[in-house]
């Protein structure tokens, strides 16, 4: 199981990739698509499609995490470039990008199922962060 991280910012997803790899270890395939092709803030459907294809070459299933706004539209365009079989292997989540990526990657690293990885990512939306008083 691999992860695709999509953001408006290349710097953000590169930093997130580093963090996810350090926490979850090197065994989970990761690909990123951040920023426009000319390096501005934004999203690029071709870059997203390339990231998805990259992960699908390395694993049976791919879970996609994205930031906001047009990332979802660019992702839709990217998914339309895939054939039906590949598209069935791509699972898009509503999970918060940073926390969701870390949780999903750790569950993927222990051989969890697609549903378990998606559930781990989704749970990031409600996980407590601050220590209880």
């Amino acid at each position, binding site marked *: 199981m691999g992860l695709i991280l999509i953001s408006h910012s290349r710097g953000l997803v590169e930093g997130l990739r580093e963090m996810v790899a350090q926490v979850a270890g090197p065994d989970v395939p990761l690909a990123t698509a951040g920023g426009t092709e000319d390096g501005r803030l934004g999203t690029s459907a071709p870059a997203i499609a390339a990231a998805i294809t990259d992960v699908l070459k390395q694993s049976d299933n791919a879970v996609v995490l994205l930031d906001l706004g047009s990332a979802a539209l660019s992702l839709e365009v990217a998914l339309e470039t895939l054939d039906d079989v590949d598209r069935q292997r791509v699972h898009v989540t509503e999970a918060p990008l940073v926390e969701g990526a870390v949780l999903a990657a750790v569950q993927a690293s*222990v051989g969890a199922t697609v549903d378990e990885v998606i559930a*781990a990512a989704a749970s990031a939306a409600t*996980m407590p962060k601050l220590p209880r008083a």
Partner: protein
Amino acid sequence: MTVSEVRLVVIDPSGLHARPAARFVQAASRFSSRIVIRQDGREADAKSLISLLGLTIRPQSEITLAADGPDADAALAALAAELAPYVSQVG
């Protein structure tokens, strides 16, 4: 079936933070026993990072590691070793 427990105190000044927690989940997932961490009346599944981070374990808090299953003793030994840099054993 064996049920085993070990009590530990978290001594790392950052508590049980993301990287060691992730290593811990990876180590726990190699065993078939049901493994939990208990702290202050709450319980987390040791094979789930979200569950574990949800405990928000503070420095100096006492935790109980419990395993229930055919490889419970081996699991606790391995997991206590995994946590060794961050904890001290109680009793």
